[in-house]
């Protein structure tokens, strides 16, 4: 045995005599003591001793939630040895029923993106600006948190806590911890959400007709006519997965008409495409309403009828209100008299650029399908300067045909039973109470910004105006700000304003997964968990007549050193504040006890978990059961990953809506009260409010849906085209730009090209300009420009140029920017969209808001 061993060693020595280089023993002798001395343990930092058990290669499907768009689908992720491998729809959800859409798969490229923020980092270049590289360097969590706590304590010491601001982007329903509770307990009114960049004007119409401030679900499987307005449910928001799954059947059963200047993914599969002139949607909506009334196609079991059954809605004639007996609506005759009576299809044809026959055909077929006839309100027609009344006019169609709250119609959300987190009031000291009383930085509630969310003036956010508030120090300067999962320096129109605003904030923190344009101006960036794989949380969503509450769970092994935005990070900040003598926030957080054990959290991880269990207890605790799916306990809920409500109860709200009259309001007493309240706050008339908010309506027309001539910036001679912005079916909000699959498959958006960013120009227009396919073109508006590639395409209305949102990042990641920090890949639509508002809701205007010119470069 020993002999064999010796031979082997001899062989080994001879085998290893391999180097062609000379080994210089003398140089190594200093290391000899180590080499020949006593046995030492290997010094390891990245690696550590382990049991040596090989991984279990068999994976399992674990429940998750996708926030690639606001469909918020319940998903399942196949996890092998702690690693996410693939994604599918969660079959346990009654909303998306196992269905998925392309964007959910891209989450895999996001979570394992090498450009993610991996560790807290701090800026070493004190100067801020687009041309100033922040020169970030890694720091520890401890250093980052200490710095943040010091800055907050300085505000508290100086009684200027109102100069703290929290900006929120994509959130889960754990949001109130960081967004609301922490901001208030520190003592600031400035929790600024992104919502007005998202869709508030879209909620405006449904609220001021049926008192529902939220996204609707559409009962597509039972409908006979779908009239979509700037909505593209097969591609973008909302319930893309569910609608994609059932659309084949919907096409079989219903007629589909799409109103949009661009041939969208949904329009490509529709029966009718109405390529309307941008901004003129309200003309079409009131003209269709006119036809419905004039031809007697309103749904009488909902709206009611003339007492004697004779239709007096004769074009151009006034109707005596006393001759009509309404049932579940309010003001149909006023609507006719004040607006509809002369809004004929012929009148609309001229304004909208649509054939009069098409308008009539769509109106009549839509009416004949009543009440199973949906008027589907998308963001396009109402996220416009004068879009508030368009939002009402389009949604009012549902009232006329009785589709509201009805089979095959438009539905609100089902009831769910999650609860709010513990209240903050007992933890707000005098400094906090005083601080919170200050005016908010976005200037909501001023005469020109009514922002009347849910009937309350000044209660809605006007996100994009915050930049101007900061720049002008009006009402005051912001000194310390935190933003999370937002990128206002890219996602808000005229983002250059945000660059100046953020440069002005002395101490800015950004919590996010990928550093972005917003981070560029930050002092500290903190690495965030990815919603789909790495955080505790939940979101609620509706579709298919159900509501689901779907869980986010940490289901994979995290690779880098991130913490969760809405729970762990505020806890850690609270600990640091407590160390500095201000423990109100930490004491508040300790109230979030584990419902199972009654224990208070002792660290950030327990806090995140207990907070989620606390908020969702009514769903998973059988002793607290209130309805919908029933679970045996927390573990059972975790395993399934989603709770479903009871199915929708149709027609339950007929006559019991939360409007001022309880009815579906064509004449909105609800809006009237809100506008009068706002006018009263400023000692002016409603007409003066209309004027200040750039609306043309005066008198009673302010309270009804009506046509408003669109407000489009730019002189027609200098800027001959109207810009049409749209969203991609691959946009994970604005966060796909660093995923290669986004570019590989970009042609799933009709008219778009792979690995390119194109402006879609009608060939008729292109010929006049001498522009060919593939030419580089510059699009210029009165407020900015972008450069991209020309694509000649018949799917865009002549006189308009369509461009998809999503590309054009100059700072995001290796793929997202062509030359990082300098040359963007493609062009960002927001660079040409002016910062304009639908001021009644506070929404930013994205559509029909600017004219542009197109030049070859």
């Amino acid at each position, binding site marked *: 045995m020993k002999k064999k061993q010796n031979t082997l060693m001899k062989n080994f020595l001879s085998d290893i005599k391999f*180097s062609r280089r000379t080994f210089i023993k003398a140089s190594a002798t200093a*290391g000899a003591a*180590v080499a020949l001395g006593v046995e030492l343990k290997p010094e*390891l930092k*990245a690696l550590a001793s382990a049991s040596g058990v090989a991984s279990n290669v068999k994976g399992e499907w674990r429940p998750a939630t996708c926030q690639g768009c606001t469909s918020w689908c319940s998903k399942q992720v196949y996890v092998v040895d702690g690693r996410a491998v693939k994604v599918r729809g969660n079959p346990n959800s009654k909303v998306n029923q196992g269905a998925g859409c392309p964007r959910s798969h891209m989450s895999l490229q996001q979570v394992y993106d090498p450009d993610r923020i991996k560790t807290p980092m701090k800026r070493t270049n004190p100067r801020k600006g687009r041309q100033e590289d922040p020169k*970030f*360097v890694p720091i520890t969590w401890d250093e980052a948190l200490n710095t943040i706590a010091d800055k907050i304590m300085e505000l508290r010491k100086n009684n200027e806590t109102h100069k703290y601001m929290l900006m929120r982007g994509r959130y889960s329903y754990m949001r109130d911890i960081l967004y609301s509770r922490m901001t208030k307990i520190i003592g600031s009114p400035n929790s600024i959400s992104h919502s007005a960049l998202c869709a508030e004007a879209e909620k405006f119409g449904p609220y001021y007709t049926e008192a529902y401030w939220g996204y609707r679900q559409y009962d597509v499987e039972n409908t006979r006519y779908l009239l979509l307005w700037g909505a593209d449910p097969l591609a973008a928001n909302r319930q893309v997965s569910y609608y994609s799954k059932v659309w084949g059947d919907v096409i079989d059963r219903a007629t589909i008409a799409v109103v949009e200047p661009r041939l969208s993914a949904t329009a490509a599969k529709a029966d009718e495409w109405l390529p309307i002139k941008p901004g003129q949607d309200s003309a079409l909506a009131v003209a269709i309403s006119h036809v419905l009334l004039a031809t007697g196609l309103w749904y009488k079991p909902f709206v009611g009828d003339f007492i004697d059954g004779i239709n007096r809605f004769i074009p151009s004639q006034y109707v005596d209100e006393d001759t009509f007996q309404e049932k579940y609506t309010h003001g149909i005759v006023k609507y006719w008299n004040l607006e509809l009576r002369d809004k004929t299809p012929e009148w609309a044809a001229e304004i909208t650029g649509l054939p009069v026959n098409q308008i009539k055909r769509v109106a009549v077929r839509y009416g004949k399908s009543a009440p199973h006839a949906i008027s589907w309100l998308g963001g396009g027609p109402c996220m416009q300067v004068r879009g508030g009344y368009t939002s009402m006019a389009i949604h009012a169609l549902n009232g006329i045909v009785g589709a509201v709250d009805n089979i095959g119609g438009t539905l609100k959300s089902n009831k769910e039973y999650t609860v709010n987190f513990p209240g903050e009031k007992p933890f707000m000291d005098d400094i906090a109470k005083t601080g919170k009383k200050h005016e908010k930085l976005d200037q909501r509630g001023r005469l020109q910004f009514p922002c009347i969310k849910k009937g309350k003036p000044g209660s809605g956010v006007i996100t994009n105006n915050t930049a101007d508030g900061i720049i002008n120090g009006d009402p005051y300067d912001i000194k310390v700000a935190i933003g999370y999962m937002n990128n206002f320096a890219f996602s808000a129109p005229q983002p250059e304003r945000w660059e100046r605003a953020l440069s002005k904030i002395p101490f800015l923190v950004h919590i996010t997964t990928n550093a972005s344009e917003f981070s560029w101006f930050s002092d500290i960036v903190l690495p965030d968990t990815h919603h789909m794989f790495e955080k505790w949380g939940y979101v609620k969503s509706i579709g298919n007549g159900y509501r689901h509450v779907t869980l986010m769970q940490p289901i994979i092994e995290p690779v*880098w050193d991130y913490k969760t935005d809405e729970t762990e990070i505020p806890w850690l900040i609270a600990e640091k504040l407590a160390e500095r003598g201000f423990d109100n926030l930490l004491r508040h957080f300790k109230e979030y006890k584990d419902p199972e054990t009654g224990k208070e959290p002792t660290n950030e991880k327990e806090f995140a978990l207990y907070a989620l269990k606390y908020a969702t207890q009514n769903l998973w605790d059988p002793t607290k059961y209130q309805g919908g799916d029933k679970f045996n306990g927390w573990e059972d809920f975790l395993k399934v990953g989603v709770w479903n409500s009871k199915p929708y109860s149709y027609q339950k709200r007929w006559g019991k809506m939360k409007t001022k009259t309880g009815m579906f309001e064509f004449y909105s007493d609800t809006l009237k009260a809100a506008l009068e309240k706002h006018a009263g706050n400023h000692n002016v008339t409603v007409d003066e409010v209309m004027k200040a908010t750039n609306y043309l309506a005066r008198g009673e027309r302010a309270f009804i849906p009506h046509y408003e001539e669109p407000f489009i910036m730019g002189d027609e001679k200098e800027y001959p085209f109207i810009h049409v912005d749209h969203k991609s079916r691959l946009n994970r909000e604005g966060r796909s730009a660093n995923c290669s699959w986004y570019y590989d498959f970009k042609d799933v958006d009709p008219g778009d090209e792979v690995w390119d960013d194109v402006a879609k120009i009608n060939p008729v227009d292109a010929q006049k300009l001498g522009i060919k396919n593939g030419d580089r073109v510059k699009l210029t508006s009165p407020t900015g420009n972008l450069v991209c590639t020309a694509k000649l395409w018949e799917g865009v209305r002549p006189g308009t140029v369509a461009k998809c949102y999503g590309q054009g990042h100059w700072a995001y990641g290796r793929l997202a920017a062509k030359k990082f920090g300098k040359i963007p890949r493609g062009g960002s639509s927001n660079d040409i969209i002016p910062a304009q508002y639908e001021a009644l809701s506070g929404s930013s205007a994205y559509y029909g808001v600017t004219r542009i010119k197109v030049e070859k470069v």
Partner: protein
Amino acid sequence: MKIDDLLLRESARRDTYKAFAECFHMPDKDLLIRLNSMEKHLGALGSEAFTHAVLMRNELYDLGDFVKLQVDFARLFVGPYSLLAPPYGSIYLEGDRKIMENSTVDVRERYREAGLDISENFKDAPDHIVAELEFMYFLIFKEIEAIRSDTPEAAYEQLGRQKSFLQNHLGLWAAEFVRNVKLNAETGFYRNLASAMRIFIAEDLEDIANIELPEPVDLEY
């Protein structure tokens, strides 16, 4: 070769890998100590990389403080924006510019077979350059242990692991990685680190390729 010479030589290899691994951590005042070690061992090994190690030290003296180096370190290996020299094997071995790919799984399997795993404190991917360099250090450490304890089978086993790991992982992607470092570094320190590592790994790869192992080593993943 005498056994003591072999031990000296292998320990020089071992500590060179260790020194390289240390150079890919966030730079701080201890960096000079690591550089001294690297310089000495590269010299002993007769490596062409020696000159670059000397230049690295010079650069470090010239820099004065570490901020510039830290900024460069972050841009190249951490981010938070476009990572200029992603220090992950999967980026180079697979096509999707993603971490945690199949090659990463294979790396982790190799760690586990050697009785290791990624440390909880490391908070990075298994195929991070630091982990892979450290793994080579560990395997050579074990080889030396085996030689010392007169167990050539074990020494062969560790050598086999080194060969396979270099040929299937580190040695396959290091060249492209250091090319990125060299192209994008703003400090001479990292440019020289890139050159030193390219040379050292190429030399080690060549040496190890010449060793005939008694049993075929599974080179697949």
